[in-house]
């Protein structure tokens, strides 16, 4: 059964790559073919993701659906299982798999209206998605890094070619920062594999080495910052976050969705996989520092968002703020806090994807993102406003939407371990209300600016896409246990996580 389910993971991983390969042979003029094809692939992936999430058993071994295809072993310094395509999911990656499925499908639908080189866009898009799935599924350090990079690299082209405002700058900055972070990870990977001395990149083997002290605590303390800074760049760790506002500002809509929705989570996921699980002693030593950075990020992002004038900058800073919550949750090393971090990854993923979708829908018509240009948009775009309000309220942490579920767990964990920082985090949530409502007031309400009389509401495709994301937010907000149950076992089995 487990093995058979492993093939589901292989399928989810291979399908986007296959799609990219097939699209190569579709003529660039056949845009509709590329779109329909991509939509079908997206739908299948969504189905597979939902299956992975639902089929994940809340009880039993946290690692499920494992599958191992050896690649290189017993060569040179590599012993048995040296490098193997070892796939599997735990509670956290199951949740993030679901997130990827949802956001990728929504993004595909949004990319529908792209006219310029649509086929090429989808090729890169699917490569990126394959990288994301691969990172979540990989239980082998080599492939983990391989897929991590595979997800990052297409971004440069996606933003550089299809982006808007200062796209070269944004793309270049983003790519350089992320690749710079990868260097740190790469160094850390070699240090860990060397220290573990098992001649294997297999993650469970390495985890065991990290936990039984084969990788000495001193060494862990040295290696840990390499991983955390490397992954932290992608996770929007303050002060390495500045690619986020600019990157988001220049990225095309569906890339923003996938990027803010899913890619940023790769960073936080990396901190769990490589930091907490691989280097428990290092994690214990460094987590207070991460907590401080996370809290600064949460407050800083929220405060900076208060006075931004551009939609995307608000969302960019709000992402910094929310990813700050994720880091706080992880840094608590408390079972509820870490669960909260995982929930927040999902919550922020769908929420921010929705926000970028909506910003894109507006920008495509209005060609400006300056808040003060708008006013009374609710009159002409009611659906759009409702969706945006939902996203904003989730952002603010209103109960009944996913944001509250996640933030509540983070706060509880933080209060158990570092009450003062918990209080500061809650304060950031209050500031979030201020910047969200400010934007609502300026843009959605008030008298209608006659310049925007002609704005059209969400198209059917956008509506479907937005509805899917809102549904996800509501699901997590209203019914917690399917999510928390799946996380509980995994989180309690993480080394160093207290109750």
């Amino acid at each position, binding site marked *: 059964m487990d093995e058979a389910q492993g093939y589901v993971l292989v399928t989810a991983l291979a399908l986007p790559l296959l799609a990219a390969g097939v699209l190569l042979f579709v003529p660039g003029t056949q845009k509709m073919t590329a779109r329909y094809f991509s939509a079908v692939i997206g739908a299948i992936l969504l189905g597979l993701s939902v299956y992975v999430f639902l089929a994940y058993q809340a009880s039993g071994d946290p690692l499920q659906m494992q599958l191992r295809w050896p690649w290189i072993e017993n060569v040179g310094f590599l012993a048995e299982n040296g490098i193997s395509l070892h796939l599997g999911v735990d509670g956290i990656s199951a949740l993030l798999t679901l997130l990827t499925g949802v956001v990728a499908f929504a993004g595909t639908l949004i990319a529908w209206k792209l006219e310029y080189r649509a086929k090429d866009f989808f090729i890169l898009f699917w490569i990126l998605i394959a990288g994301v799935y691969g990172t979540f599924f990989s239980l082998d350090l080599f492939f983990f890094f391989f897929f991590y990079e595979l997800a990052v690299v297409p971004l440069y082209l996606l933003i550089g070619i299809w982006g808007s405002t200062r796209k070269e700058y944004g793309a270049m*900055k983003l790519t*350089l*920062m992320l690749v710079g972070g990868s260097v740190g990870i790469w160094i850390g990977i070699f240090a860990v594999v060397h220290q573990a001395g098992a001649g294997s990149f297999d993650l469970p083997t390495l985890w065991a080495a990290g936990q039984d002290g084969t990788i000495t605590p001193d060494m862990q303390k040295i290696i840990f910052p390499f991983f955390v800074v490397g992954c932290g760049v992608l996770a929007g760790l303050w*002060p390495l*976050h*500045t690619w986020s*506002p*600019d990157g988001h500002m220049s990225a095309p809509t569906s890339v923003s969705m996938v990027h803010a929705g899913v890619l940023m989570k790769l960073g936080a996921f990396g901190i769990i996989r490589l930091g907490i699980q691989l280097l428990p002693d290092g994690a214990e030593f460094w987590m207070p520092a991460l907590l401080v950075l996370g809290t600064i990020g949460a407050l*800083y992002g929220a*405060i*900076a*968002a*208060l*006075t*931004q004038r551009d939609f995307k900058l608000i969302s960019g*800073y709000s992402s910094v703020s929310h990813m700050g919550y994720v880091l706080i949750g992880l840094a608590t090393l408390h*079972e*509820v806090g870490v*669960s909260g971090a995982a929930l927040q990854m999902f919550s922020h993923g769908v929420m921010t994807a929705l926000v970028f979708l909506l910003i894109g829908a507006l920008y495509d018509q209005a060609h400006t993102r300056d808040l003060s240009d708008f006013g*009374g948009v*609710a*009159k002409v775009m009611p659906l759009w406003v409702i969706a945006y309000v939902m996203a904003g*309220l989730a952002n*603010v942490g*209103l*109960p*009944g939407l996913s944001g*509250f579920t996640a933030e*509540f*767990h983070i*706060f*509880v964990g933080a*209060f158990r371990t570092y*009450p003062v920082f*918990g*209080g500061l985090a*809650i*304060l950031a*949530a*209050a500031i979030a*209300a*201020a910047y969200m*409502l*400010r934007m*609502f*007031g300026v843009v*959605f*309400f*008030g*008298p*209608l600016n006659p310049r925007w009389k002609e704005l059209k509401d969400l198209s059917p495709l956008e509506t479907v896409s937005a509805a899917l994301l809102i549904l996800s937010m509501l699901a997590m907000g209203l019914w*917690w*246990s399917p999510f*928390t*149950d799946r*996380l*509980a076992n995994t*989180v*309690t089995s993480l080394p160093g996580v207290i*109750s």
Partner: protein
Amino acid sequence: MAEHAWILAAVPGIAFIVMAAFGRNLPRQGDWLAVLCATAIFALFFAVLANFLNLGGDSWPIQNSIEWTAIGDFELNMGIAVDPITMVMLAVITTVALMVNIFSVGYMKGEPRYWWYFAVLQLFVASMLMLVLADNLLLLYVAWELVGLSSFLLIGHYWERRSAVEAAKKAFITTRVGDVGLLIGIILFWEATGTFNILEITEHVKNGAIGDTRLFVTMMFILLGAMGKSAQLPFHVWLPDAMEGPTPVSALIHAATMVVAGVYLVARMLPVFELAGDALTVVMVVGLLTALFSGVVAFAQTDIKKVLAYSTVSQLGFMFVALGAGYASAGMFHLFTHAFFKALLFLGAGAVIIGTHHHQEMGQLGGLWRKMPITAATFLIGSLALAGLFPLAGFWSKDEILHAVEGQGTWAFFLLSIAAIMTAFYTARLFIRTFLGKPRDEEVASHTSEVSPVMTLPLVFLAFMSIVAGFFIFHDFGSALGFPGGFSEFVFLHYPSAFHVDWGLVGLSTVLFVVGTFGGAWLYWNGRLDRSTVLAEWQPKVYEMVQRKFYFDDLYQFLIDRVVLGFSYLVSWFDRFAVNDTGVDGSATMTGYTGFVLKHLQTGKVPNYAMAIAVGVVALTLISLAVGS
């Protein structure tokens, strides 16, 4: 039935979903569905009440909960707990909700987004019922936020008006600041006791689970939440502005139900407050200050809804004072009676607004008595109840509060008496200026007419309740209706106490009423303003201060504009220039510059390269020799 009281919340919840999805397409935009829903929960309430009383005091509170989520040791249950305090709240909510729903059919006729208004109204009712039914603080917080959201949506109903949007925003953010405190308090409780269940928390605290200082701090955080929601000083600023919403909304949310959630919360947690050192004193001081402050500000308001709003803030202060004195029954009783007569007053104001075609400045009204007799009569009853005329509802509950405060030292009693005089004073002013005298604006008066029965009916019903609600305090009245006795024998903290009329206090209350009312009447009778402008002319600075609400709004505006936003600009600037331009782009520039410098090593001349190679060969050879030997 009582253990399934959650149905009460479920019904309007479902109604909300249906109306939000299809309301626009239903016949009459679904207002009948709203009224039907309100009637259903009104009826269901009586079923619950009957069952509750049948089960008897030994089985209270009636609880029913399910496991919600669990992570390791962290378990969370969701459920309901029904006790007398809850029953009082249910009575208030269901009754006022029904009245307001009916009234709204008339009031909102022809307004934009008619269906949406009713849908959100149902959302509010559902969340408010959830709030009072919750057996744990987390569910309470969830409902707490949802009522805040409904309030936000309803205040901003006329979102084409900039002022409405601003008011909605202000309400949401101000209460949110309090909510931060509440959430911190809730988590601190969990931290100490490992549970969110209110009864279990109480037990744990009684067993000394939390140290003294810590408990006090926790209770202050909880109180912060209550103050935010109940618009206590210094969080009161949002409530007067919330009058931008449709008037029935003001009646339901900003007079009868949502704003008393803070009072409810304190009453609910009163056993814990009692153990928390000086926490109750803080509650009392906050209540007193609020009661006095808003009583004064109400003098200078000219908008009838604003007067009522400050009056509400003031009366909420009264309730806090009662709770601060440790008398849950007094506070809850005032909450109970106040809900009826204040809802009546607001609906009456709504009727005036409709009758005069959207005029609510007292300067343009006056003499409405003749044009709108039913409204005027019911408004008078409400005013008298508010001012505390024997034996209307407000009299008995205010009497209870004075009685409660009696034991707390003379200063509190004295100050509260002054607040009571002020209540009577501004109420008299409001009624006289609106309904008596000659019309000040003929234009307005000529269009004025009595409102339709769909609006007067709720007024009459509420007027009736304003008269009789006070009698619940009597043992015989309660027993006759099947209660264990009078109000304070039904709702109590430690032990039931039957009510006895204290004629001395009754006399004092009456004196307070008379002084206040006649003071107001003397100043404003017959539409004259000469006496009342004396103060303004005598001390213009003081008058302006009162009129500007003691500069609270200006102060907050300054804080937000200069301090908060200024800090935000600073952070944004720092992010752009220090972090991004200097840190990130700077390192890129450094790399580029290093390359610019180093590129000069690349001369393009072959001999130079050859030289480098030769030097390298020699150096490497020497090094390897040195290392080798």
